[in-house]
């Protein structure tokens, strides 16, 4: 049990400062009282803890149950002091600078789109943006500000303070939660305080919390989730269940803010797995074990998944209108949004038939429409190969009158739609005439311009040479339900297979040179089953004949015309959105000026300039507290070294640590050391532009590990050293170092608040590393 300290550690605690001893006993008192209550098992403890979570407003503390007022007040004192200090630093002058700072540009845009209900596509999950939006909504943001570029000023109508409030409060709670987490892990309460103080006086967390950025929210959810899971693993019975549920919920929120939160989730799974693994060696019955493993698995899988899905449900429900990002999605998805494609496709005929005028859309990867224009392929390409000199067929990423094609049965000369329409079905053959030039889509055994391994596709021009037209295509409906399925607009995914060669019409992904106006190449390819061979009809209308009035009336009265916008179920939309998010290739700017590599992070090689004042040298940088940062890196090495050392010594049957201390040491490793690497290592394998702020989720674990390593060293010294002097020297060293940390924090805080005009010498004084780039206005 936690409360039973070994005699040794008690002695050690006595030997240290009185404050520690006092608070330590308080802590054990508190814990024992809590535990006593938990053994009753009435669910009450969960309420208490929930309150701790909600301590954003101080008022609530007064409402606590009277019976435990005394105890709670005492334990919350440290907690509340830390929280207050954190709120003080994080909320201070929050509306300054009143300019768009760094990624506020993106998140601000998303908030605006939420306010207007306009659909947007983003590769990151929506919870964080939704939270920002709600804060803005409550403060009455009207969504009438265009976030145009970093550094432009906010008008009065934008409630900057409210929008920045959520990250700032999250950043403050982070300090308090760090304290709570370290109480679970460390030997002494003072180390928990130390850890929280280090987080409090960390410039990078300060800067990241003060603007509309999502990292602090993500880290808060993650850390709180881990704390709950740890609490759950140390308890049994209903307490364990409740804590695990809260933790799972929080972790679900964590990866609904940013996908890097998944690493925290994996850590939690590992921790629960480890708990179960240990219980296997207890003499419990197999059934009990299996059951407890099962419910934990269910909780850990279902709750986060439910959170994730409901966040997306809210996301899609909040964004009903069509907007500029629509073209990333399929026709069906777009048609389900208000306005946009839906207003065009509403009322259009469903079944494609002989005489249909259609646009053919390609959706996999890049969105574009099958296109042709009155230009021919050049006779010779630059590499010396010849072409057919026929009319170009391309895939064009914009809507254009040249995207219209007419479907025609090969044997029917008239283009008018008969009555009833001559519907095209799966497996039937058609010709496709280009609407403007009236030439037929054709393919032949000529190498394509950019992908010579495939066949060229052209619109056939009869040059009266031996090359005959090969313009018949078989329609294969990929998502057909029966073998005689009709070809429906929007709904059907079709593959057009060239009858003569058996190749399929395909978007090759390559761009044509300037003779093709840099549009994308379309080829006929032997690999028929590729995703890029799939097309769908987007816009669709029937060709009207001379006698069109009558025919039109017939068509309007026909039952196959949908009168409402296409309805997609939530699941269809959800799955499509997930697929698009996964396959979305981020076109982040390569070679960004402040980008950095994962190897550079532990030594803080680069900072990120967030903002520069237009009229002074006041600026905001994301930069860490050098003293903490380097000590943290050192602590990781030290912990790794100790881990190896203890393992080797144990192998030779020397046991340096008491079983309790050893358990604490390995427990901390499993949470902090593993947590650090789990949040850091994956970035080495990421093929995209990375920034320093990607390191922050790992860094919080590193700071806590630093506190733990100090804790561990102190403990070891206390156990082995009989004289007090040595421990006192150690405490003194730590105190001096801590003072240095705070001084450094104070010195660099101007770069987090961005409220002070800095002279060149000021900046040079802060430039501790040659690789840090601060910005200076040119002297006029």
């Amino acid at each position, binding site marked *: 049990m936690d409360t039973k300290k070994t005699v040794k550690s008690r002695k050690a605690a006595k030997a240290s400062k009185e404050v520690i001893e006092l608070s330590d006993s308080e802590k054990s008192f508190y814990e024992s009282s809590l535990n006593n209550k938990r053994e009753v098992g009435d669910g009450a403890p969960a309420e208490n803890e929930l309150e701790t979570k909600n301590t954003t407003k101080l008022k609530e503390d007064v409402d606590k149950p009277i019976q435990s007022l005394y105890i709670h007040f005492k334990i919350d004192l440290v907690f509340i002091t830390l929280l207050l200090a954190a709120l003080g630093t994080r909320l201070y002058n929050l509306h300054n600078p009143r300019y768009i700072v760094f990624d506020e540009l993106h998140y601000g845009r998303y908030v605006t789109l939420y306010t207007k209900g306009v659909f947007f596509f983003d590769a990151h999950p929506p919870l964080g943006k939704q939270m920002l939006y709600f804060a803005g909504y409550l403060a009455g943001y009207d969504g009438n500000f265009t976030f145009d570029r970093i550094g432009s000023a906010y008008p009065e109508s934008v409630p900057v303070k409210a929008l920045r409030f959520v990250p700032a409060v999250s950043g403050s709670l982070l300090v308090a939660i760090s304290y709570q987490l370290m109480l679970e892990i460390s030997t002494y309460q003072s180390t928990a305080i130390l850890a929280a103080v280090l987080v409090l006086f960390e410039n990078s967390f300060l800067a990241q919390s003060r603007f509309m950025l999502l990292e602090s929210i993500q880290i808060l959810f993650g850390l709180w989730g881990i704390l709950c899971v740890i609490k759950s693993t140390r308890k049994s019975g209903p307490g364990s269940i409740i804590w695990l549920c809260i933790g799972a919920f929080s972790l679900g929120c964590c990866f609904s803010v940013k996908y890097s939160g998944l690493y925290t989730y994996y850590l939690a799974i590992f921790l629960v797995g480890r708990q179960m*693994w240990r219980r*296997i*060696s*207890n*003499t419990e019955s*197999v059934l009990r074990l299996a059951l407890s493993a099962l419910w934990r698995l269910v909780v850990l899988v279902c709750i986060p998944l439910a959170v994730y899905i409901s966040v997306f449900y809210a996301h899609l429900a909040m964004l009903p209108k069509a907007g500029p990002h629509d073209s990333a999605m399929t026709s069906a998805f777009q048609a389900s949004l208000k306005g946009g494609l839906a207003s065009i496709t509403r009322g259009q005929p469903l079944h494609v038939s002989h005489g249909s005028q259609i646009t053919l859309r390609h959706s996999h*990867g*890049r969105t574009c429409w099958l296109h042709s224009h009155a230009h021919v392929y050049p006779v010779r390409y*630059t590499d010396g190969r010849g072409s057919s000199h026929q009319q170009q067929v391309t895939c064009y990423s914009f809507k254009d009158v040249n995207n219209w094609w007419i479907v025609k049965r090969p044997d029917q000369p008239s283009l008018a739609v008969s009555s009833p329409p001559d519907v095209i079905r799966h497996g039937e053959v058609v010709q496709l005439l280009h609407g403007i030039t009236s030439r037929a889509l054709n393919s032949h055994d000529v190498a394509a311009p950019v992908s010579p391994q495939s066949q060229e596709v052209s619109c056939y021009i009869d040059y009266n040479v031996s090359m005959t037209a090969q313009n018949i295509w078989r329609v294969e409906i990929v998502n057909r339900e029966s073998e005689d399925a009709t070809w429906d607009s929007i709904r059907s995914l079709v593959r057009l297979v060239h009858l003569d060669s058996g190749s399929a019409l395909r*978007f*090759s*992904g*390559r761009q044509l*040179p*300037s003779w093709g106006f840099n549009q994308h190449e379309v080829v006929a390819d032997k*690999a028929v*089953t*590729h995703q*890029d061979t799939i097309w769908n009809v987007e816009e669709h209308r029937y060709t009207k004949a001379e006698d069109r009035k009558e025919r039109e009336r017939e068509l309007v009265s026909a039952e196959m015309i949908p009168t409402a916008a296409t309805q997609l179920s939530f699941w269809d939309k959800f799955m499509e959105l997930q697929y698009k998010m996964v396959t979305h290739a981020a076109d982040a*700017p390569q*070679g960004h*000026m402040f980008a950095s590599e994962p190897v550079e992070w532990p030594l803080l090689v680069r900072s990120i300039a967030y903002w520069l004042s237009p009229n002074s040298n006041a600026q905001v940088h994301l930069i860490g507290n050098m003293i903490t940062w380097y000590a943290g890196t050192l602590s990781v090495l030290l912990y790794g070294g100790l881990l190896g050392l203890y393992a*080797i010594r144990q*192998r*030779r*049957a020397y046991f340096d640590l008491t079983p309790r201390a050893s358990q604490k040491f390995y427990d901390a490793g499993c949470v902090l050391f593993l947590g650090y690497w789990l949040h850091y290592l994956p970035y080495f*394998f990421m*093929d995209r532009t990375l920034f320093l702020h990607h390191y922050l989720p790992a860094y919080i674990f590193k700071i806590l590990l630093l506190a733990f390593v100090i804790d561990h060293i102190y403990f070891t010294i206390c156990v082995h050293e009989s004289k007090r002097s040595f421990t006192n020297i150690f405490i003194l060293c730590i105190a001096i170092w801590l003072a240095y940390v705070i001084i450094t924090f104070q010195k660099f805080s101007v770069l987090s608040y961005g409220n002070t005009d800095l002279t060149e010498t000021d900046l040079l004084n802060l430039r501790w590393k040659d*690789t840090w*780039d601060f910005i200076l206005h040119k002297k006029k």
Partner: protein
Amino acid sequence: MAQTREKCSSSSKIWLITFGLICGATFLTRFYKVLEPDHVCWDETHFGKMASSYINRTFFFDVHPPLGKMLIALSGKLTGYDGTFHFEKPGSKFDGARYEGMRIFCTTLGALIIPLTFLTIWEMTKNLDSTVIGTLLLLCDIGFLTLNRYILLDPILLFFMSCTIYGVFKVRSLTDEGLPPFSSRMLAWQLYLGASLACTISVKFVGLFVVLFAGLRTIADLWNVLGDLTKPVSLTVKHLIGRTITLILWPILLYVFFFWIHLTVLSKSGNGDGFYSSGFQARLEGNSLNNASAPRVLAFEAAVTLKNHRTGGGYLHSHHHLYPAGAGAKQQQITTYTHKDENNKWIVKPYDREQVDGVVLVRSGDLVRLTHAATGRNLHSHRERAPMTSKFMQVTGYGEDGVGDANDVWKIIVSGGKDGDEIQTVRSKLVFIHYLQACALTTTGKQLPKWGFEQQEVACNPNLRDNNALWNVEDNIFDQLPKMSFEVYASSFLERFIESHAVMLHGNAGLKPKEGEVTSQPWQWPINYRGQFFSANSHRIYLLGNPVVWWGNLAFLAVFFLLFLVNCIREKRAQAFGKTVEGGENATLLNAAGWNFVGWALHYVPFWAMGRVLYFHHYFPALVFSSMLTGIITVYLLQSIKSFLSPELGRTVYQSAIGLVITTTVYSFYLFSPLAYGMSGPMSNEPNSTVTGLKWLDTWEF
């Protein structure tokens, strides 16, 4: 006593017979029709070309280390190939070129993998049944057969890899037997292991995974030695020292030695020169820098060429063509060009006057103008977007006969030096900072469109922290200073060794799939999703795994995982109740399977994290481990089943199951063998094809 000895000798006789049979079968399958088709197959076009390069001693560039290609070249040389065949493209006929030696050499190495695998599984398990099944799976795999019969690096790589795996387990057995660390037998095997490691990684860099495997195995060995409390710690230290020397230092030495041979053999200038630095080129016979001489330092009025320092960077270049409308100001184009050309020459002038009196050296920090020798335009930059990279500024040629404006002034700085340093030919790394715009002259490496003759874009980067903004003076034409031979600048072996690696890494990183390109994905490999054509036309060969073997392997990976988990939990439970778990043969088998699983994972999982272009044949090293695993787990499962049955019934079931596995494997080999030995006639999707029934998956394209 006599009985056991008899049993022993009879079992060793069985062992020998089995081994002989396997070797015979290997020989037959591998060398049947080995010289067909008599045209270039698939990547033979690359490796054949490189072998010719070695024989002709012309320099070339490749992303793989040299050992495999050198061995191919050696075998070709010894069997009378003269290096004149062009290996132009897959499908070109050999027409009398002596390719036979090279192909037989590769096939021989490929064939040796099978007996090596036999020995390895035996070493791991000492169980003949699992050894036979594991080896047979590999022997009967069509893909493995196909891949190991042509002039490719893969047979060589897989051969050395198998040598390594065998060595690893041999060393383990020796360590377990308690052989002293410095005994000659131990050292001999460790040296063998070290040499195999060096050879594997000198063929392809994927050999790194097997090095990791050997590393893990070595750590495990040391850990076991350390855990034996009856032995002193010094024993572990001795083992550690022995292994550091034989498994780290000795392989490194060999690896460097192979590169030394590579760089010594390739002494003539070839088509790979442009990828390397000036100093490197000075070593190559026939290169313009070889035996050339130039002044040591740069003076004003010298005509120079400037080479960009990025790997594969070209020379600063200009020509009489203007940027087209829409790409910034319509002034003369500035590009980098990888070939040597008169248009690469620039004249260095002081910023404020046309001429200087006497010899004035250019020093770091000086303001200079660079005038293009052929057109008389100055290197110029201004606030216009660069043609391809919109964040950078455009660089143009501006002015008439050297008279331009203030935007022609550049500050020349020696990177890593201080103001006032002399600028040395070749050696100094230079940065050119635009004086007014404060941006650095750089090349983005992006290809200009046709109007720029597909040369590379030059631009001015406002971010001065740009690794591509380094240049060096290569030619330095100035008569008033004494000339020095380029010999001085020529890189030493160590510099060239390091540079080769930088260029190879760069080349490997550049092998990115283009948008829309179909590339093989790691998830497709274990399920044998899609193969690879080796040879088309009338004699078609298709690299595809034997589906029976591959899908079996896949299933057994899952089975192993479950078995391992269950076993762990059982052990842990047994401990909880104070029981001991019986060890015995099953534990040995499971342990061996575990190591195979580690090997498989090491050779497969990293590909998921790779951004480069991947191919189907990258899976084959993992396949070796996976097949061994299947052999072992099959026997493990059968033995477990046997122990539940009565002895009589158990033996029958066991024997018939083993027989069934063997016959199924052999039959599937017979069924799919046309894929490896050549198919002709119509494709399999047409009804009258000879291989109609074999198209089990839609994605197979034979």
